[in-house]
């Protein structure tokens, strides 16, 4: 199930909230866990089994860590736990990719091929695997207390607001909240506001932009006219941001409705003035994970600039591969690793001296080229697409292919949404702060009213858009 579906909004959520708040406070964690398993099992129930079984494994290892005092034994246990989680991730997420690569090599050597049944990918496995790894490592390091019970641990892993697409939550951030949390009307309303905002971003901005990007990236890229190439790339850049950040907003909002406070995952990344700053603002929970569990163990920036550069590069390779089992993601990671290494060489202070508009525009351009690598199936496709961005003579090609007319591919609604999404993305942090939109609770009565109006508008228009997508009428029947 996904948050941006009518069945979630108008069936799962009301029933869940009613059960949650009707239950006595002691039983609310139980309702949350049951609801989370139902949420996850909806559509692919067998994957809920994988979630629970791998959770049992992680919990057993963590109990072992608590009981073992010998350092070697603890090291062996944490290595076992992390490897076990990574093995599950490798099987479900990467085995198809590796078998494809192997078959490619075997084919090249004329040695036949490995017979393999493709493995289906459980939803959100990348997120909950990293969450479980963070828990084990934190318990090993002593930065997190071990979960009080298996029940608490499963709730931490499976809590539905953050289960599918993060944020990747650290156990010590929510341990106290699992044990006991405040439920209040103002927090609940703050959650409704944040959820509605996220729903609006996902359904009203990201979905229409994604539909256009899909159509444009689905064309024959070698003859793609430049205007479409630009529109497609911009649509994708804003789609991926509002899709992901919108989902995080919804997760944070749903968490607040249940009394949880999750860490922020996005902080206006497109206003960053360098790629380094971008990564402090984009998918913050993943960046933190990579910093704490990969970059610092590799030596971080303590072993000279060359080693730091290599470490950064490795971290982004891993990060890229985490995003998906394809060379495109690896190249995307390498691209960002290279940019960060270069920025380190140039010096962050120098970049900050650039005029803000130049810094933001330049960073946005670099990040957007990265999205091109991320979105196209292969690196050569990305290079071809990049070439089409500057193929100005290709305007004429629009006239020769009526299936690609502007209004068909890019409606006024798309252009309006693109402008809205861009405007929303580039609002500065100062503006948000000055007007108090960053606060959990509204600071003034005026803002409280504005939040209610804006949330209602997002909820209504998103519902209308979702229902509209389900109604594609033909003028007359011809069945």
């Amino acid at each position, binding site marked *: 199930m996904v948050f941006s579906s*009518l069945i979630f909004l108008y069936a799962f959520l009301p029933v869940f909230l009613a059960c949650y708040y009707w239950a006595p406070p002691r039983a609310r964690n139980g309702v949350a866990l049951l609801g989370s398993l139902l949420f996850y099992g909806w559509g692919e129930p067998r994957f809920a089994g994988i979630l629970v079984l791998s959770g049992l494994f992680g919990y057993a290892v963590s109990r072992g860590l608590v009981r073992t005092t010998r350092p070697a034994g603890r090291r062996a246990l944490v290595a076992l736990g992390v490897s076990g989680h990574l093995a599950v991730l490798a099987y479900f997420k990467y085995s198809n990719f590796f078998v494809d690569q192997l078959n490619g090599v075997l084919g090249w050597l004329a040695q036949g091929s490995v017979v393999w049944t493709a493995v289906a990918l459980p939803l959100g496995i990348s997120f909950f695997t990293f969450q479980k790894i963070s828990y084990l490592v934190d318990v090993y390091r002593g930065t997190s207390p071990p979960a009080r019970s298996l029940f608490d641990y499963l709730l931490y892993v499976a809590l539905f607001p953050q289960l599918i697409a993060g944020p990747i939550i650290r156990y010590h951030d929510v341990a106290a909240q699992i044990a006991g949390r405040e439920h209040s009307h103002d927090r609940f*309303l703050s959650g409704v506001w944040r959820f509605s905002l996220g729903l609006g971003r996902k359904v009203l901005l990201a979905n229409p932009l994604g539909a256009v990007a899909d159509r444009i990236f689905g064309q024959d890229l070698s003859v793609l006219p430049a205007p479409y190439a630009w529109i497609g790339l911009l649509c994708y850049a804003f789609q991926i941001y509002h899709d992901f950040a919108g989902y995080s907003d919804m997760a944070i909002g749903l968490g607040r409705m249940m009394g949880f406070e999750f860490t922020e995952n996005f902080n206006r990344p497109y206003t960053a003035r360098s790629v380094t700053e971008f990564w402090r603002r984009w998918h913050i929970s993943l960046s933190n994970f990579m910093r704490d569990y990969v970059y610092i163990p590799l030596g971080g920036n303590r072993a000279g600039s060359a080693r730091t550069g290599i470490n950064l590069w490795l971290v982004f390779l891993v990060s890229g591969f985490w995003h998906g089992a394809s060379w495109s993601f690896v190249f995307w990671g390498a691209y960002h690793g290279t940019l960060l290494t270069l920025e380190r060489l140039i010096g962050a202070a120098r970049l900050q001296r650039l005029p803000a508009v130049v810094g933001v525009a330049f960073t946005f351009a670099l990040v957007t080229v990265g999205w091109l690598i991320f979105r196209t199936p292969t690196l050569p496709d990305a290079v071809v697409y990049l070439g089409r961005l500057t193929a100005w003579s290709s305007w004429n090609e629009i006239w020769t292919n009526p299936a690609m007319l502007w209004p068909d591919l890019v409606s006024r609604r798309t252009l309006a949404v693109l402008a809205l999404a861009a405007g929303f993305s580039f609002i500065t942090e100062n503006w948000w702060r000055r007007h108090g939109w960053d606060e959990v609770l509204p600071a003034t009565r005026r803002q409280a009213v504005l939040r209610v109006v804006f949330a209602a508008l997002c909820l209504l228009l998103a519902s209308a858009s979702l229902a509209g997508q389900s109604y594609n*009428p033909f003028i007359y029947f011809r069945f």
Partner: protein
Amino acid sequence: MRRRPQVLLAYGFVAWLWLIGILTFLPGLQIGGALRGVVEKPAPPEWSLPGIIDGSSFRAADDWFSAHVGLHNLWVRLDNQVSYTLLRESPVRESGTRVVVGPGDWLFEHVYITAAITPSQLATEELTAMADRIRRVQDKLERRGTRLILIVAPSKVELYPEHVPAAHFAGRDPAAIATTYERLRPLLQEAGVDFYDGPARFAAWKAAGHGSLFARTGTHWSYYAIYHVLEELREMLNPDLRRPIPDLGLTSLDYLQPQRTDTDLHRLLNLLLPPFHEPIQPFPVIRAQTEVADADLPRLLWVNDSFGLGLIDTLYRARAMQPTDCLYYFQNIYSLPGFTRREDAIGELDWPAYIGEFDAVVVVFTEIAVEQQAWGFFEALDTALD
């Protein structure tokens, strides 16, 4: 914010979710009016163990819920209204008929615009073979005493390109593009096919100052135009019919708001607010004739797309043909009048015997559908009547 409004808002939010959820299961309480257009509604989910294990039951439940969610029709209308009011557009859907809004609220079906600016790709040999096949079928039917008439209906876009938003033509001029029908026309004439050239006739009427050939809000020819088409059809068919089509009995022209199929595109917009201004247009008032007995009325077999429905409707209003069959899109058999679907399949028809029941076969399709070759009707008859 003070506590009381907070409590009200929090409960209001949850109550709202519940209300919509409950309304989903109470279809009788749907508000927003029935939506126009044809959709295939998802079936209710079947909860079976295999379905639950492989997830298909859940996916079916998702689809069913989305299509039946409380206030569904109101939501759809709201979404459409936002697009229409703010952007003068109908939302681009995954499938279905897409409506393009032109200046002055002239509405067009998108598929006609694409067709008007897409040059024909068929080889001349294929077009010649198409014309020859129709001629063969015409001859075979004639030998059995049944007249064939092919009616090619005009495209609103080809007739009124000046009302299509210019951006949709992307700098192309429909008049300068040879469509498949425009290439087929001389070949049909050369082959001696008896056909009604709707596009040419409508262009001539437009040039002669006839207005209201299409309503702004419809995709089909207007009732006014239909009357004139039928008059010309009578002239073409009657000399060869054992039982001619009687006089259509036009008594007057009423000037009314667009009605019935003249508003089909407007209705398909499914807006929330009342309709925009629609100029009045002439409607022929037809008197059902009583002079000719039922048995002496012609029996016509219809093979048609939706352009044929107006012709059929007008003929029955005039009581000008016998109850008959309609092979709609050559997919299913419908009994006329009433348009009731019959159980027997087209593929099981005994063509030589079946065709003999009719005085004439009337094939109607739009000029943009020429390449579909009457959905296989001519091929089927060409083979069956050997």
